[in-house]
């Protein structure tokens, strides 16, 4: 999965000399060019974020609202903890369980890639765009 992303990112890198590229690796599940262009998987994560209306609680830029800042949370949470939180929710604190939502559950890795990229500061705009094919 990651390997595919790395290869496509490498191809893009050769085409875009001088562009600033963050490539996916074990610690970084996303590929970003110039802070705003992302790989297809990360882009899908943005779409899921938008459709699930996460911004209503976590803020339009993930900086927190009635829910916590995901910029900060994803600096602390492991991937496993992230998946558990999304799946089971934290009902007493207002976080719903998404286990019955197929769109979210099928794309939980994408969602993580996008939010991790935002949290790391690698994706500099809330709404990224796709790396040109």
């Amino acid at each position, binding site marked *: 999965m990651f390997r595919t992303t790395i290869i496509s990112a490498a191809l893009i890198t050769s085409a875009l000399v001088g562009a600033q590229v963050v490539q996916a690796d074990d610690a970084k599940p996303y590929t970003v060019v110039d802070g705003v262009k992302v790989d297809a998987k990360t882009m899908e994560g943005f*779409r899921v974020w*938008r459709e699930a*209306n996460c*911004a*209503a609680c976590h803020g339009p830029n993930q900086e*927190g609202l009635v829910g916590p800042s995901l910029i900060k949370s994803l600096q602390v949470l492991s991937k496993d903890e992230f998946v558990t939180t999304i799946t089971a929710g934290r009902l007493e604190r207002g976080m*719903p369980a998404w286990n*019955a939502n197929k769109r979210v559950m099928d794309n939980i890795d994408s969602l993580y890639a996008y939010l991790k990229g935002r949290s790391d500061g690698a994706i500099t705009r809330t709404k990224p765009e796709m790396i040109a094919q």
Partner: protein
Amino acid sequence: MNLNRITMLLVGAALVAPVASQANDDLAAKIKDSKNWAAQAGDFANHRYSSLNQVTTANVNQLQVAWTFSTGVLRGHEGSPLVIGDMMYIHSPFPNKVWAYDLNTLQIVWKYEPKQDPAVVPQMCCDTVNRGLAYAEGKVFLQQADTNLVALDAKSGKVVWSVKNGDPKLGAVNSSAPHVFKNKVFTGISGGEWGVRGFMAAYDINTGKQAWKGYSVGPDEEMLMDPEKTMTWTDGKMAPVGKDSSLKTWKGDQWKIGGGTTWGWYSYDPSLNAMFYGTGNPSTWNPAQRPGDNKWSMSIWSRDVDTGKVNWVYQMTPYDEWDFDGINEMILADIPVHGKETKALSHFDRNGFGYTLDRTTGALLVAEKYDPAVNWATHVDMKTGRPQVVAKYSTAKNGPDVNSKGICPAALGSKDEQPASFSPDTKLFYVPTNHVCMDYEPFKVEYTAGSPYVGATLSMFPAPSASKDQKDGTMGNFIAWDGGTGKIVWSKPEKFSVWSGALTTKGGLAFYGTLEGYIKAVDAKTGKELWKFKTPSGIIGNVFTYEHKGKQFVGVYSGIGGWAGIGMAAGLEKDTDGLGAVGGYKELNKFTELGGSLTVFAIPGK
């Protein structure tokens, strides 16, 4: 045909009249006694007016705090307490606590706190608000967030009956206040952002048995609509809605998840035996997924109180493209309209137009902008009743994944739920308004039962200044409005949206609260500010008044929250684009903090 109908109505009225005169005279009498604040609006007509006149334009500056009460609940405090004789009934947002509070001793007589599934909390779109209680015949009615409608014994706080009004697992929740008209308690439903299909329901006040339920969209029989008898404004006159008036304005089965929720303040005219309310936005916010007029979302309704049959209906915003949710209150006032005395209904819609209709027939009389910033439509065509949409602000024309910029008003409307007041002394409406615009980018969203079904990203910001008195960057006005001509009489700018319900009094005053936390009194004739006091938190509750032991009191909840104030918990550190409701309201951090309380004022010694 018409003659037959009139005869039938007369016969019907004659048969119903004896029952009507007995059922719930109690509440009508308690409302008539202005010492009480017996209903959320103070009356059935949504006037929010009191004939108490100890506090006047001459002495209002002597108002001082008489006592305060903490609810112990954070988040937004909307609505107001009720006062029945010596007892005040106080409520809180989720978990929806209720207190009976003895005004003689200032002691809690009983407290009710329901057990509710915390999973309800994230199903509430715009903070966990509750807009208050209703009272009738020794019972206090609470509409819980989890949709349970509960009747409490007013003396003991014990549950008399409880009925489930919707399924919170599907996003159907309640934030609105129940309303008692005659022998029924009326409640609607929230969840337009979850694809909930809206309805109005009536329950027997003594048993909780459902008397009728009428949907906002769908087949005629489920809306309790008679294709031949239910009327609507058509080519400059009233005409029957015809068969399948809702179904034929939706593509496929979209109406089943089509919204049209009903979470506003309802009103009742005993002489017409009719109740009035508005329906909300169609679901989703992405118009591309629901071509058609989406009837009867975004509409003003008149229903028979006893049967629920729809007398007339008028759609304000066909094919919504902006979330101009039409639930705001219908104010029933007898006013001159274009010079002619009229039994009118006035309504300040989220879409920025102030409407006046003939409440008997449903005929459209006035539709004018009540904030000069409104730009999404040039005007309402008075013949068709349709707003004339400006192409560049049409999020449907611009399409999904395109950001339509600079639309005024924003989705939270030129006014949201914060209710206006009508003074029979000045014959004017006093309207708390938002002065906010938005960028709106719709996107495709799949429906998943119980998950958000929004489908648009919004960014909100202050509108351009509306008058020479208004500084750039301010976000609200408190206005006086002539409903008969559709003109602003005066306008008082405020830094933030005015998100509290207004109160007018015989003392020549209009009261309202601000998001910074001030309660203010102005001269109802001129708008001149006469008094203000900073309460513990931002005000989104409604100002109310009552008399106890010969003295007039004025009170209001403070407790910032709601859609406008929800960003308070954010603690945002830097300016970025796309802040939604948060952006413009971010500065609230400088003025106030979360925390629910009630502050009650009186003139010392008076």
